[in-house]
């Protein structure tokens, strides 16, 4: 089982092709500066870029004014400006959006691009609970497709001053990379239908942790199939008993068996002290 790289996003421009990251910002200026820098880097890598954020087209075009040959690139579809998904301006279903993204990437490759870079402002999505749930589901499924080789680089941004704190933690934690000290954990897709975890997870983050686990386990396989779900813990630096118990709680609710692969010594010490029905350590 290969280990996927994850961690703290210190500088959005350090995104590499295939990275999937989350960026919380406090002001629109901060967002635009980061987005422009990331898009510029993507264009330099010959990626087709998608800029998905709310607001009038002309305003968004002005945001990108620093990018060279902007009008030409918009004209030949090297740069696409769109509304964010799951909003009234773009009311798609999860499966529909997944198909659209895959088609976009195929078309980009056919047109000679190295892949696609998407930068999204999902603030409007996250303040709507239904839209947020759809987006969480989409995030996990697109992460799986990226692990499976989809030539996509993705940066999901949101205004953390207006989004519910627990949701902000859960969304950030669903990305392999995220900025800020919170959350302490990342839960991301790995090969097959499995997942990996990076960082630290403790009782203070049980709610977003269980949200992230629920999204992952609910798409592992059909509930009740007795699926063995592997959670790669090679990048897990700390877990307390409440967070470990959460894995068991969510696993039981989705009727999956979870194997903790590559557990560290701390987890190996903690595990025997707990009576967990649906979680075991992989030898």
């Amino acid at each position, binding site marked *: 089982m290969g280990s996927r790289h994850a961690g703290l996003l210190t500088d959005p421009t350090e995104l590499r092709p295939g990275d999937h990251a989350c960026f919380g910002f406090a002001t629109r200026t901060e967002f635009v500066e980061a987005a422009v820098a990331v898009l510029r880097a993507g264009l330099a890598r010959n990626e087709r870029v998608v800029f998905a954020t709310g607001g009038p087209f002309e305003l968004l075009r002005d945001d990108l004014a620093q990018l060279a040959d902007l009008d030409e690139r918009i004209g030949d579809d090297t740069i696409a400006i769109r509304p964010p998904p799951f909003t009234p301006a773009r009311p798609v279903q999860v499966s529909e959006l997944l198909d659209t993204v895959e088609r976009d990437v195929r078309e980009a490759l056919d047109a000679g691009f190295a892949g696609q870079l998407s930068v999204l402002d999902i603030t409007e999505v996250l303040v709507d609970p239904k839209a947020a749930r759809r987006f969480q589901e989409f995030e996990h499924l697109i992460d799986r497709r990226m692990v499976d080789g989809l030539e996509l680089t993705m940066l999901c941004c949101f205004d953390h001053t207006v989004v519910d704190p627990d949701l902000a933690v859960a969304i950030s934690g669903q990305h392999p990379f995220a900025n800020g000290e919170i959350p302490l954990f990342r839960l991301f897709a790995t090969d097959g239908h499995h997942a990996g975890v990076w960082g630290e997870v*403790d009782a*203070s983050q049980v709610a977003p942790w269980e949200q992230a686990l629920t999204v992952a386990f609910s798409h592992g396989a059909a509930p009740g199939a007795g699926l063995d779900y592997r959670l790669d813990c090679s990048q897990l630096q700390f877990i*307390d*008993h*409440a967070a470990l118990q959460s894995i068991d709680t969510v696993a039981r609710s989705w009727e999956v068996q979870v194997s903790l692969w590559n557990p560290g010594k*701390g987890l190996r010490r903690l595990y025997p*002290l707990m*009576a967990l029905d649906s979680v075991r350590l992989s030898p």
Partner: protein
Amino acid sequence: MTSAFTPDAPVTDDGDFEHVAGFYEGVDELVELLADDIATAVDDGERVLVCIDVAAWNALEQRLGDRAAEVTYLADDVRYSKPAEAMRAVNEFVRDALDDGAPAVRSIGVIPLDGQHDEDWIRYEAAVNEVLARLPFKGICLYDTSTLAPELAREVAAAHRTVVHPDGRRNHVGGAASLPAVPALDPPTAPPDVVVEVDTSSTARRAVRGSLADDVPADIVDEVLLSLSELVTNGRVHGQQPITVEMWLRPGRDVHIAVTDHGTGIDDPFFELRPPAPDDVGGAGLWIVGQLADRVDSRMQPDGVHRVVARFALPA
């Protein structure tokens, strides 16, 4: 602060629960004390756990004959490394036996009074009366009178429901009137290596982790950090801010951590010995600290703050 232990409550005589102190001198008396009891238990289908030294077990095994194969033997130094480990071992044995359909469980062991941790073991005995009281459990705790000081013998007897002698005499004692006094676990008198006010357990871990890295084996670092995290979480959830964390490192000797909060303290006098209930979500933190640390102690300080101290021995 309320206590789950009510020293004035009458001792109930629960037919399914027995807690017996057995006094003996020498292997022959030990075998005499145990053999018939174990034979009857085995014949009744009870699950029996025996934790005595190898020489005594060999003698008992001979006396029991074929029945010895039905007894689970555990070397006493394995089970009785510390009270929290002993309580966990007996709880797991009881749970597994009952899940297997055994009608009752009998646990027999020599309690290791060594002159250094005697009060901890006597407190363990008091905890058995409460923690295991609702189970079909018969515990026989053995004490070698050739090494047992008379004043300790009285305390030991008082911590049990019944005292049994090699000649078969049984005296019903009824349990102690009050919790045995246990000396406080005080941290070193030297200034702590780390002292920091924290609002999260991650802050506490970060503050302490770097100070341990060079002098403490990695597995003990994990135990210290997990214990610290659980204590801070407990302080945040059940205590009151501000929460202060202190750490003392004595290389080649031990690590002490202390977590102080402004709440009313821990209600349960046996918090580190009582296993969490199966449906207790997120409520096992203090018990886990009891499993990881060599010793843990909770006290209200003279200034009214609550402090938990845990000690972890280091290899010399």
